[in-house]
């Protein structure tokens, strides 16, 4: 797929991957073998009819392709951009055994974009009203999926969002250069046109509790996200200039600090930036810092390149843009100046030992190898933990020791009528896994609303 030139793109905030034209998309779609027993579908959490939509592209019926996508997913234009297809649908594509797999993600993006920007967007007619009311908490990938699936079945759905803008991680976390906010807004417009009532600025747990919602709704889905940044808990972490990735990206994306002072939210403009962590969020943060004028931006990661959890595409994008990767280093403390502003990250060098429980080789510190990386800004991107606001104000919803909701495979929590899915059940994961959890929960909610039966949950 054509990309903006690296030297050019680090000076703007526009999308890096430029998308395909019709000819390229059709040619790629024709490579699909249309397997009788498609392995790609079995590996898609959103259960998309992949051969179906790809075939429509192959014959030039792009709107029809988009309709098939949207029948299974409320966020196809998003997934076409941010899904790790290489570990899902494309991993099991039969073409991939001998050749390159069919570029399913790029085709998904092509067809979805084509329809989103088409003049007449086709909105399916909803089913007749069931009279059942559902509250969906959190307008991120899981919540949007649940809301979309349930409204199509005729339920009356209210989608509550704590922030002023819906989208969850798609608007506060993932940067414009990887996922344009216009795309998210267009996908949300469809959900709204289907009849979902969206209420922003509503913090469930504060503005109203889950118990209060249950007085007015027949079912509640909790998709409020992990929602609390993790820190390393090492000395100096509260120095000025040290951010959590959630804060840094929220300032930049949701609050558009990159247009400061036109937008009034400020963000530090580090010249020498270190980002701690190796996931997609770390890549987003480090690439954002380059666009905000960093002379030097580096990733500090305690294992090696092979273990980086980020998508290979994002790692390559970062490398092309000039991000430095410091592997096998572990931060032990932050150093600051007299103004309490961070000036350095003291690190230990690591070497890889035996594989740990995750199957990755465990990093072991090398004694006496301390050294200092000079910085004037740091972003800690080591993951998120469970935000306690919803759980602590509700009754009867059990959580794990770490604060995540306990739910069965269909999202049933320990409280009848209350379902949960996405990061607040699994811990921080991917957009597509949240969508998958949302799909399963929507089916279970529909079943519960139809039959009124709450089975004993098994987790």
């Amino acid at each position, binding site marked *: 797929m054509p990309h903006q030139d690296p030297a050019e793109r680090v000076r703007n905030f526009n999308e890096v991957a430029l998308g395909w034209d019709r000819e390229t998309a059709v040619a790629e779609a024709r490579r699909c073998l249309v397997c009788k027993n498609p392995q790609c579908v079995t590996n898609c959490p959103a259960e998309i009819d992949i051969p179906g939509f790809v075939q429509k592209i192959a014959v030039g019926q792009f709107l029809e392709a988009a309709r098939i996508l949207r029948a299974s997913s409320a966020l196809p234009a998003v997934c076409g951009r941010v899904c790790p297809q290489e570990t899902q649908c494309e991993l099991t594509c039969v073409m991939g055994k001998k050749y390159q797999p069919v570029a399913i993600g790029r085709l998904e993006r092509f067809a979805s974009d084509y329809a989103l920007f088409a003049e007449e967007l086709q909105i399916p007619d909803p089913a007749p009203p069931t009279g059942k009311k559902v509250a969906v908490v959190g307008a991120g990938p899981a919540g949007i999926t649940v809301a979309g699936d349930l409204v199509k079945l005729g339920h009356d759905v209210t989608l509550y969002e704590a922030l*002023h803008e819906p989208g969850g991680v798609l608007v*506060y976390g993932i940067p414009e250069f990887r996922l344009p906010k216009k795309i998210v807004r267009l996908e949300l417009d469809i959900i709204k046109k289907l009849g979902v009532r969206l209420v922003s600025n509503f913090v469930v747990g504060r503005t109203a509790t889950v118990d209060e919602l249950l007085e007015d709704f027949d079912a509640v889905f909790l998709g409020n996200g992990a929602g*609390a940044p993790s820190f390393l808990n090492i000395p100096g972490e509260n120095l000025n200039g040290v951010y959590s990735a959630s804060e840094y990206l929220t300032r930049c994306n949701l609050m558009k600090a990159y247009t400061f002072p*036109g*937008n009034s*939210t400020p963000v530090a403009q580090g010249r020498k930036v270190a980002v701690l962590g190796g996931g997609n969020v770390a890549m987003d943060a480090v690439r954002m810092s380059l666009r905000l004028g960093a002379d030097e931006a580096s990733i500090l990661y305690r294992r090696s390149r092979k273990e980086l959890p980020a998508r290979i595409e994002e790692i390559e994008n970062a490398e092309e843009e000039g991000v430095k990767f410091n592997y096998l280093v572990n931060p032990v403390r932050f150093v600051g100046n007299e103004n309490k502003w961070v000036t350095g990250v003291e690190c230990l060098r690591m070497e890889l030992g035996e594989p740990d429980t995750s199957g990755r080789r465990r990093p072991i510190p090398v004694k006496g190898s301390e050294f200092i990386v000079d910085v004037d800004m740091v972003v800690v991107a080591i993951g998120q933990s469970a935000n306690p606001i919803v759980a602590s104000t509700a009754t009867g919803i059990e959580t794990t020791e770490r604060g995540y909701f306990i739910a069965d495979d269909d999202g049933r929590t320990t409280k009848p009528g209350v379902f949960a899915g996405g990061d607040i059940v699994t811990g921080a994961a991917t957009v597509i896994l949240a969508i998958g959890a949302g799909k399963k929960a929507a089916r279970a909610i529909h079943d519960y609303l139809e039959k009124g039966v709450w089975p004993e949950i098994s987790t």
Partner: protein
Amino acid sequence: MPGQSEVMMHTILSKTMVTERTWHMRVAAPLVARKCRAGQFIMLRIHDSGERIPLTIADWDRDAGFIDIYFQEIGATTELLATLQAGDSILDVVGPLGNPSHVEKITGTFVMVGGGFGIAAGYPVARAFREAGNRVIAVLGAKTRKLLICEEMLRAVCHEVYVATNDGSYGIQGLVSDVLQGLLDGGEDVRLVFPVGPPIMMKIISQMTLPHKIKTMVSLNSVMVDGTGMCGSCRVTVAGKTRFVCSEGIDFDGHEVDWDEMMSRQKMYGKQEAEALSYHREHGACCGGVR
């Protein structure tokens, strides 16, 4: 159910200057008013390109569906807020956020020590302690008499109100800490002190009460973005551990707060705040979308 309408209008019902560059605003916010308790705050955003700022809820009327806020013009956002008039609306108001202050019947006297416009934030807590059946004293501090706010409101809910002004134009000449010292020396059975105002004042008061082993609850005003525990911008070290003011506070034990760190974090954006202010003074009209 609350929030059934998609567009929540937060109309400004009234606006009064309480002293120079300090305003009282009454804002329609039925969802917040329905639920809020003493010690909680809101986040507001005036218009589409505005920042989110936290403001303590000073008072509310659940039936009428409004809240009262006080703010001082200290930056781009608060200066812009001060230009809005009754009838205008604020784009986003979300809350109530933070945990309510822990209010209970205590043995002995509750003393609210308020400085500057922080006095407004102390008002609902003082009132709640009074309603819980406590003896309540307010110690109010201002540079000079005309900068003193909310005195009448506090007189209505406190057993006693003392005022300290730096120039002696009203009450005693001196600092709120002098008044508190006087209370302690005079045999008042002070068991809980609640300082609210500039961090340096809260630090000094906390240091004063420590040797007396008087419980001191502080209400922290950190830099926030979302206000729901999502970003960690407001983090502060309390008893050696990192805590989030918005989701775990806003009240903490004043004896355990790392005040120097708290104060330096509060100044993190000093330079940019000045830049934003001059930009908005120059481009005021561009902020758009206010009405």
